[in-house]
């Protein structure tokens, strides 16, 4: 099982990704999709990353998930660049024989991705002001649940 990892500015089709996971032979498929929220006066989200490192960081997380749970497929997609409210940012999907494995792997990858993948979000407001999003300590707490 080789994880499918993509870092791209283009949108992706959730349906296409799930179709691939469903055909991998697993009995359970679990996914997480992150969307740019439409609340407040946010006109756009600007997602920066550190290209030299991004793919390696996502690969490390995906391989760790694949070593902890028996997966038949694992997909991680993260977009960068300028995104409008309602657009997809990130997709994590896993397939396994048993639901617990698929759900845990999906949850592990998104929790680690939040704290250990080199992406940064900037919110651009309708009035022209910008704000770099602050990291949340709850994200590190969510990741640290997985320390074994």
């Amino acid at each position, binding site marked *: 099982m080789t994880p499918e990892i993509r870092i791209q500015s283009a949108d992706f089709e959730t349906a296409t990704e799930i179709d691939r996971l469903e055909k991998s032979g697993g009995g359970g498929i679990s996914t997480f999709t*992150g969307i740019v929220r439409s609340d407040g006066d946010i006109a756009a989200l600007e*997602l920066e*990353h*550190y290209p*030299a*490192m991004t793919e*390696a*960081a996502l690969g490390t997380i995906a391989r760790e998930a694949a070593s902890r749970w028996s997966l038949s497929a694992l997909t991680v997609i*993260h977009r960068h660049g300028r995104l409008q409210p309602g657009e997809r*940012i*990130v997709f994590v999907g896993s397939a396994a024989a048993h639901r617990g494995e698929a759900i845990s792997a999906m949850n592990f990858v*998104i929790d680690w*991705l*939040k*704290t*250990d*993948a*080199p*992406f*940064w*979000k900037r919110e651009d407001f309708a009035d022209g002001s910008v704000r*770099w*999003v*602050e*990291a949340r300590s709850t994200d590190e707490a969510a990741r640290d649940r997985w320390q074994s």
Partner: protein
Amino acid sequence: MREAIGKDGERCDPPDSVTTIADLIDWLAAEGGGYALAFADRDRLRAALDQRFVPFDTQLGGAKELALFPPVTGG
């Protein structure tokens, strides 16, 4: 950070006394200005050496690239 320092990368040649990432941060911050501002709060600083997250007490050794940035906010 990038906005405080005014650039997104540079080559630098620290003295021999700088052996760890923490040493390098101290040495740069001592220059004052943008560096002092950008590195004021170490809790809000993360380091990657040759594209891997590492703690600040890591030896620089023969690494080619050190990246310093705020905690990530992707996903």
